[in-house]
């Protein structure tokens, strides 16, 4: 059997693949955080909770309304995005002029509320969501076995991340968005309704989290706390990549997922903390993050 540094190749490839799947989630979530932070100046602590709500929306849709996976992939982000828009209009909007720490605290409170309500309703034990029929089974690549669903998650997340990047960096809508980030007053003077753009951006960023939630539903147990520790890792990813850099958050999300996977092969005890350690190292070397500008 082929070995690299004494570790069997299939084990390494298997963990790399799992890491890439995790990295896909990091990328999607940190991308949403970066987009929201870019325009609103708010670090959305509720991102993990909204990811969780996205997964539950899919679960409830399937079990109560008979909505299948593919429609859930569309409808759950819309529903959670709509919730996000309501939160932005009712609460977040009033904090833009204040210290950004208040936005963090508010969204932290909202996350606790969402997790508390869901824990009451569903208990802390997990719900499972079936893998959709078309994505069951595995690819046998010869050197390793790749479940089709995991491959689908990687592809779907890459497509979503690339599309978001393309919209923001290469389209007219995106240039308006970036202009509104730079100088909202001037953009408003050109007759563009900036508050509506801000609202829609929050809705879209949050919808992205819900999309990730639906994607994750067949992979893991859906629990009320599934997003709470994930969001902390995603924060670290964002600090490593440099907040406000769309490209940076995608790349660092994917790479850190794989690094975590490799750590599971080499020194499993450290796999939980490797992202945080890398964050500490990056801060000592480049405080603005790998792709960030100060």
């Amino acid at each position: 059997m082929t070995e690299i540094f004494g570790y069997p190749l299939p084990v390494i490839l298997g963990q790399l693949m799992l890491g890439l799947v995790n990295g896909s989630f990091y990328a999607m979530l940190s991308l949403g955080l970066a987009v929201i932070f870019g325009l609103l100046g708010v670090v959305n602590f509720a991102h993990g909770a909204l990811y969780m709500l996205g997964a539950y929306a899919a679960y409830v849709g399937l079990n109560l309304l008979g909505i299948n996976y593919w429609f859930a992939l569309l409808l759950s982000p819309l529903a959670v995005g709509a919730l996000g828009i309501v939160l932005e209009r009712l609460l977040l909007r009033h904090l833009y002029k204040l210290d950004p720490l208040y936005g963090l605290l508010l969204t932290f409170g909202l996350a606790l509320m969402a997790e508390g309500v869901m824990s009451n309703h569903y208990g802390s034990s997990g719900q499972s969501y079936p893998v959709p029929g078309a994505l069951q089974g595995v690819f046998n690549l010869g050197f390793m076995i790749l479940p089709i669903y995991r491959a689908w998650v990687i592809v779907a997340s890459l497509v979503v991340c690339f599309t978001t990047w393309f919209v923001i960096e290469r389209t007219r809508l995106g240039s308006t968005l970036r202009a509104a980030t730079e100088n909202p007053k001037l953009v408003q003077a050109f007759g563009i309704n900036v508050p509506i753009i801000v609202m829609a951006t929050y809705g879209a960023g949050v919808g992205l989290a819900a999309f990730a939630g639906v994607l994750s539903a067949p992979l893991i147990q859906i629990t009320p706390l599934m997003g709470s520790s994930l969001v902390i890792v995603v924060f670290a990813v964002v600090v490593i990549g440099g907040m406000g850099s769309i490209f940076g958050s995608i790349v660092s999300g994917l790479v850190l997922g794989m690094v975590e996977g490799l750590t599971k092969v080499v020194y499993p005890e450290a796999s939980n903390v490797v992202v945080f350690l890398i964050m500490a190292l990056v801060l000592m070397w480049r405080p603005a993050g790998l792709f960030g500008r100060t």
Partner: protein
Amino acid sequence: MRASTIGYTLCILLALAVPALGIYPVFAMQLMCFAMFACAFNLLLGFSGMLSFGHAAYFGFASYVTSWLIMAHRWDTVESIVTGTVAAGLLGLVVGAIAIRRQGIYFAMITLALGQLVYFVCLQAPFTGGENGIQGVPRGSLLGLVSLRPDVHMYYFVLVIFVAVFLFIRRIVHSPYGYVLKAIRENEPRAISLGYHVDRYKLLAFVLSATIAGLAGSLKAMTLGLSTLSDVNAGTSGEVILMTLLGGTGTFFGPVLGAGIVTSLQQYLSGVVGDWVTAIIGAIFVACVMLFRRGIIGEVLAWQQRRQAGRAAAQQPVGRA
């Protein structure tokens, strides 16, 4: 100023009388430990402008170290508390040195991530007992003179330390060092241009805050005789923020009041509404941020100031320029 003197006198009298009033001393001790924790946190957020989102790391780590020294090495109570506190301070030195490289929102995210790192270390390290934590830690005695086993003895021990810490924090804030911290909070670039080594001041504030948080954690371990993962997790970091915010960030008594309210709510609500506690805590957070950002004490002080300003304006004789 006089009103606050009366207030503090009443508080001290009430605190001294707690065992006689039939208030459960263990609850009062727990409350004081969290109040001390919140005061430590407030030293950082309220007086230095740094929002640490991972403060449970110091509280919980000190708690583990103290319990472990007593259980595994049969150390003396006071020695263990001191060592636990120092350990938390050293941890604060390491985390602070990394975190102060960024400001504001990044500082919060970095401390949160490093706090989570400490949590995972405590979850996996052999000496913490993993999911079970360390239980049944005996209180021992105070330097071999007075047994701390009776709740009343332990209560006065915690009270004395709490009052000392409270006065110590007041002293720091009113010292020249405290004024520099406030200047950094208000305008960091200006403090730098005035020639202050801003990073050193901030790091010292971080270490002091972590040390006091550690002392609170050690005392909590002694009070309840156990250290668990909940002392060190992100939820506790959130609670201490809420206590400070609710009571009044940047006021002296605010964190104490906030700790009192949050701890009592948790104690009594969990019997009444069960699992809704988390959601209620979240709702209080939202209400605090949206409605009264100064916190209870902060709003009272602001109201007093407005009233005094109004009175001063009314006394101003008309026509005098």
